[in-house]
């Protein structure tokens, strides 16, 4: 059975191979990014002779990646701030306040969770175009908020349900208004959930392709992911520079992963255990 030492080691071998296959593509890309064009053509696998940072500089400056970074950063920061604010407000009310229609509202938010973007992208683009929001920062921010709000509300509601109702009642008796309870009690108590939902929302927005493609058609409004894809045409015969671009775009997410891995996993699993 599972306990035998041999069986465990027998499973460890393919698992280690798979772990290697998971890491290798990125290592390969990082290595290519450090090579000269000539080295890459001659031998793709050998470690770069001496790390060349020129490729990174070329990709950064030549492709104007700074602009894409700023675009992505502004949009993601605003979208996540709004998502957390609206999500925690609604989550608090749905979890801990008694009011007429609350269960219908909660079901409505859940229904939003089951409407994939692909299904509404045509009418949504049209609504955005009619209101003049296409190709503007507020338009993309709003599209992201709409996309990830049902998920955020759902997770914040289930988090706030774990906070005892007595805390809310006690704060009310102490003379706090409902808004006071939200600001002084629920917002601080929601911090762990806000952190993991916020990271997850940020990752979703940062990594998105389709919504950005539809909402931000002009080149100067490209988000980082759309911009990186555009590098492909620009450096089709200069793979090391292209690889550098990929690497630059991957670094922020890798950093977040290294430091906040547990919070990301918490966010992913919250839906499965509480649903």
């Amino acid at each position: 059975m599972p306990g035998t030492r041999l069986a465990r080691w027998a499973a460890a071998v393919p698992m280690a191979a798979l772990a290697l296959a998971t890491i290798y593509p990125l290592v390969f890309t990082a290595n290519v990014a450090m090579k000269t064009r000539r080295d890459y053509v001659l031998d793709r696998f050998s470690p770069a002779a001496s790390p060349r940072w020129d490729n990174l500089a070329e990709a950064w400056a030549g492709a104007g990646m700074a602009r894409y970074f700023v675009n992505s950063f502004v949009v993601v920061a605003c979208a996540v701030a709004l998502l957390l604010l609206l999500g925690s407000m609604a989550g608090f009310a749905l979890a801990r306040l008694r009011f007429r229609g609350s269960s219908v509202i909660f079901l409505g938010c859940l229904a939003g969770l089951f409407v994939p973007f692909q299904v509404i992208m045509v009418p949504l683009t049209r609504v955005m175009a009619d209101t003049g929001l296409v190709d503007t920062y507020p338009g993309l921010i709003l599209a992201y908020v709409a996309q990830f709000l049902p998920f955020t509300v759902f997770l914040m509601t289930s988090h706030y349900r774990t906070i005892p109702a007595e805390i809310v009642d006690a704060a009310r008796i102490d003379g706090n208004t409902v808004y006071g309870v939200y600001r002084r009690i629920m917002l601080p108590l929601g911090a762990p959930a806000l952190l993991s939902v916020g990271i997850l929302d940020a990752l979703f927005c940062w990594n998105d392709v389709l919504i950005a493609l539809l909402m931000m058609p002009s080149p100067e409004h490209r988000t980082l992911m759309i911009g990186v894809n555009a590098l492909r045409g620009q450096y089709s015969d200069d793979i090391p520079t292209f690889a550098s671009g990929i690497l630059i775009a991957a670094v922020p997410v890798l950093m977040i992963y290294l430091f906040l891995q547990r919070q990301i996993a918490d966010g992913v699993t919250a839906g499965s255990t509480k649903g």
Partner: protein
Amino acid sequence: MRAERLAPYVLVAPAVLIIVALRLWPLALGVNFSFTGDGDLNGTPVGLGNYLELAADPLFRVSLRNVGLLVLLLPVAVAIPGLLATFIYLRVPGHRVYRSVYFFPAVLSPVIVGAIFNLLLGYDGPLNSLLAAFGAGPVDWLGDPGIAMFTVTGVHIWATFGMALVVFLAGFSTLDATLLDAARVDGASLARTIWHVIIPSLTRTIQFVFVTTMIGMLTSMFGLLFVMTSGGPEGSTYLPEYYIWHQQGQMNRPALASAASTVLFVVMLVVGLLQITLLRRTGRQD
């Protein structure tokens, strides 16, 4: 006091407004829109015209066939993380490392994943040179209409199995350890332990992973398709989401695209409900 009574509504109002206006309302709008025409017929009702055109369009048929392929591959996409999670739960040597390593591609954007695999899978790329070293290949991973869809799906699974793995591990943490000990005392084999103890205890988790993996396959492969194949070669890697995007943005056929959206929505509902019923039934038999 009146302000206090209104407070809950004030708190939920912004979220409700956004969800209704930008998710639920567009759904109704889109279904309605799918029964009208494009171009000169813009706004005029055409009945089932768009749906008939879809049924006759070879590209859309390919995209539906590919959905069928994905549904067939779904058990594989669920079994891989499930099995890996089992081994990690059983504390295979190095289990702590595996968990973080396997999860890592899940945080990368499809654009980055797709671009990296474009490098690795090119006809004169590294994977083929590796195969050549063993005397095999070369394989035209992204250029052969019979292979490309499998390649892209494989890359998607590579990029996302960590998500399902983490969900499985969370499920395992709720597992009753005494059951496993009992199996060990009885001398049950690993396969029997998985089949008789682990799977029945994790029905809910497995159900959740099945449904979310399917939703992921049907709605988050756009980025990979966009970067890796653009629907080619010969339209062999079309999926409904790519078809919708192509008809709306490239061909200027928004009403036709809306009809495709509606079909996708119905397909997802049907497959999702079917899965849940099926899994419930097998769960009850145990």
